[in-house]
């Protein structure tokens, strides 16, 4: 039993995936809030300046929308680590998500800053539903890969 680079990669990936799971949950909550906003009747008259409650909520949504790039970078980062550690199977499992991320970022709307979501189209029901579904799928993927990394780490530690 020795502590190899591969084992280190798995450990790191484990920790980072935990963070990604957190991001995914945040993402789901944010889009849910966007969608169910109309259920809050109090703000009908407060349409000009948002109340404190609303400000908090808006900040939460904004933060979630900003977390996109860090999420992508983290994922790319441990994919590169797996590449270096020559963990081909793990890398292969991550390839679909990696290519999806690249495609998603390539096809984003015209924007001068970084980011993915356009405030003018985000409320479109199709896009909203798509983003929600995306969030759930990613959450599932990260959860599964979390356990897979755990298994992979133990396997590497035991077998070496």
């Amino acid at each position: 039993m020795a502590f190899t680079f591969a084992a280190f990669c798995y450990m790191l990936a484990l920790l980072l995936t935990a963070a990604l799971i957190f991001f995914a949950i945040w993402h789901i909550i944010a889009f849910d809030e966007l969608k169910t906003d109309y259920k809050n009747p109090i703000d009908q008259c407060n349409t000009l300046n948002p109340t404190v409650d609303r400000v908090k909520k808006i900040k939460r949504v904004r933060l979630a929308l900003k977390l996109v790039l860090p999420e992508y970078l983290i994922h790319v980062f441990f994919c590169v680590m797996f590449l270096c550690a020559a963990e081909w199977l793990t890398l292969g499992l991550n390839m679909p998500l990696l290519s999806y991320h690249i495609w998603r970022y390539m096809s984003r709307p015209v924007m001068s800053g970084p980011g993915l979501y356009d405030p003018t189209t985000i409320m479109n029901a199709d896009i909203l539903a798509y983003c929600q579904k995306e969030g759930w799928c990613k959450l599932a993927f990260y959860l599964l890969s979390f356990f897979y990394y755990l298994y992979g780490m133990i396997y590497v530690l035991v077998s070496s």
Partner: protein
Amino acid sequence: CNTTKRKENVKSHHMTPSNILQEKTVPLNGNSISQIYSGDSSSTTTGSASPVPNSYESLEGGGYSGTSLQSPPAGVPAKQAPPFGYNYPTMHPAYQQSPAPKPDPSPSHGGYNPPGYQPYSQVLTLLSSALGGLSGVSELEAETLRPMNLLQERNILPPKRAPPPEPNLSNDLRKVNCSPDTFRCTLTNIPQTQALLNKARLPLGLLLHPFRDLTQLPVITSNTIVRCRSCRTYINPFVSFLDQRRWKCNLCYRVNDVPDEFMYNPVTRSYGEPHKRPEVQNSTVEFIASSDYMLRPPQPAVYLFLLDVSHNAVESGYLNVFCQSLLDNLEKLPGDTRTHIGFVTFDSTVHFYNLQEGLSQPQMLVVSDIDDVFIPTHDSLLVNLKESKELVKDLLNALPGMFTHTRETQSALGPALQVAYKLMSPTGGRVSVFQTQLPTLGAGLLQSREDPNLRSSTKNVQHLGPATDFYKKLALDCSGQQIGVDLFLLSSQYSDLATLACVSKYSAGGVFYYPSFHHIHNTAQRQKFQKDLQRYLTRKIGFEAVMRIRCTKGLSIHTFHGNFFVRSTDLLSLANVNPDSGFAVQMSIEESLADTSLACFQAALLYTSSKGKRRIRVHTLCLPVVSQLSEVFAGADIQAISCLLANMAIDRSISSSLSDARDALVNAVVDCLTAYRANGSNIQPSGLIAPAALRLFPLYVLALLKQKALRTGTSTRLDERVFSMCELKSQPLQQIMHMVHPDLYRIDNMTELAALHLNDSVIPQPPLLQLTAEKLTREGAFLMDCGSVMYLWVGKCCNEMFICDVLGFPNYASLPSNMTEIPELQTTYSERTRAFISWLLESRTFHPAFHVVKDDASTKTSFFQHLVEDRTESAFSYYEFLLHVQQQMSK
């Protein structure tokens, strides 16, 4: 005007029963024109029988009393209503004799059945075979469902502009329902479930014109505005009163208390009649809102004009026209004593004008640092119009002359907009931008993206989306500070409207485009610009507005179309709202509507008037819910469907590609007709069968495909294409329909037969003609009404009497090729023609450009491109299109 007429017609419902019976016997084509025009047709009057209830519960007025079809409308307490909700008890015998005293039809064909239509008995035999099992359908509903073989029936166009279909509601509800000019639904019978909607393959959506100029509007001032406690719906005619103290919301079904104040009726000055209050008697009302509805004191009217004064702009000469127009209308600008006004001009630098009261003349301040543009002085750039009127007038008189010798060709639009935003953000208001070229300096500079060689390519059209998000971001900032930006583009060159329009799109402004504007060489454009400005400057305006659309539980909003920023799933933020903009909303059915028989939609627009009052305008629309596919088809409103499809197609062409959007449009027709065929019309297996309600569907879709916005193969400038898209997205329905399918009339032989008599003027009513060159003759003169432009086509051998009497020239050869108006001659025929044209323009807010087109003139093509039924080198003729659809259907 329309509203008053509708009112008149509504009165006819109150006539004595005998009268009504008489009307019932009037043949459909024998109605007077005035009745047809008013949007209320004979079939409406005949249909005063209420539907037969389908469940006994509803008879008692309990249960879902307010929402069931049979119950009396909210205005009438249940106990007062006679059983079955009949309005005219004495009429029972007559109606019992009629074959099917079933729900009211929702005819779209009502007043315009031409004499040549099939006789009724024949329709009935057809009907019995076509609708075999469907017993619950009345004759007239069957008429809208009458299968038609489009390949054989050539004359499908109604001789008059068709009124929208009437929803199949009891007479009381119909009477109070919202005007179709304001609020229209693509399906006047709402399907019960999403599955049923999917089966019909028709889009469900609303077409709104919420801030329309109205002649009659009940305005209500009260301390408490009665609203549902859970969904915040405003009380409306379709709620039900359970007893004197409680009412049930028609959107979420919550039972609410009636507040004490509401018990008193200010109109009749009586107590204890909440159902007689104006809120419950009218589906369009306006409330004066209390301070609960504001977060800051209502803003004053603030107008900022941002004027391009580069060489190009001066050359086009728009400044003269603009300054003169503003001078003429300075008094009429909507506002009060607090109204503020300001001017900023820009070329490669940005110029400000200090108009502080007390100065002897306006002071010009130039900021040349366009990378970091700043406001030179803070308090006197936006000045009170009343106090500084003289200075403003001085400036307007001086402005056109100030830049005549400029050599500056650059345009720093981006920085100018940024500084306008800074200037306006403390108050909010309206910024009007006049731009004549591509912005070339500073932030937001753009490059030319159009390749002229690709203008007529049949392949994909590129660059329909914005090149940069600068203008969009700016618009969102503006929207946040309640600033609306209106863009006037007067450019002969490519100016990337696709990018520039974003500044108006997301700040709820408007876009105006005058291609190749020149104040001398292009008279038609100049006149149009002048008239548009006149309307633009004097029309009503609402500031810091939001609009919320609520709908019955189970329905939800899918997508919005128009110029605004979507703040939340059902809330639009409109920095400015103007009476000329329309909105479209796509809806989806999330939960089954099986336990209700009525669906309601409410649009509430909260705005600050130019007089500094906070007001809420509320429109409520009520429609029946149906469970049969045939009823969904019967209630289809083809004009609304076409408009909604146009909006969807434009979104598609920007997000995906133009060819995708065109395919989707064709597929919409194919799918819908396939669905209709699959719905068990086993009659007439050959041919292209469509229900009468949808008979114009292929025609309208073909017309859409030939619109500037969506056509391919015909040379179209990118800017004109994008402008056409902007128009389709933001105009109200009537205007779009004129654009898509213009009206063609022959006007050289108008007679007084069937003419309309309105306040001692005679308005002839020539029939609508199909848009095909086949209908044109060289002996005639034809008027084509395309909404924003009108053509009078004069044939080579046109009657010289007509040319002489109406156009004021002795013969065809002497007609000039660029005539842009009809002279006011004192001949009978001239008066008649002008009466007809002004009648067409009556309800129009913007004056169309007018062109007299000679058969041999070069402008002929612009006239002929609107003949959508004809074949062009790159597009189908109508008949070919039908064959294409048929072919697709058989795949």
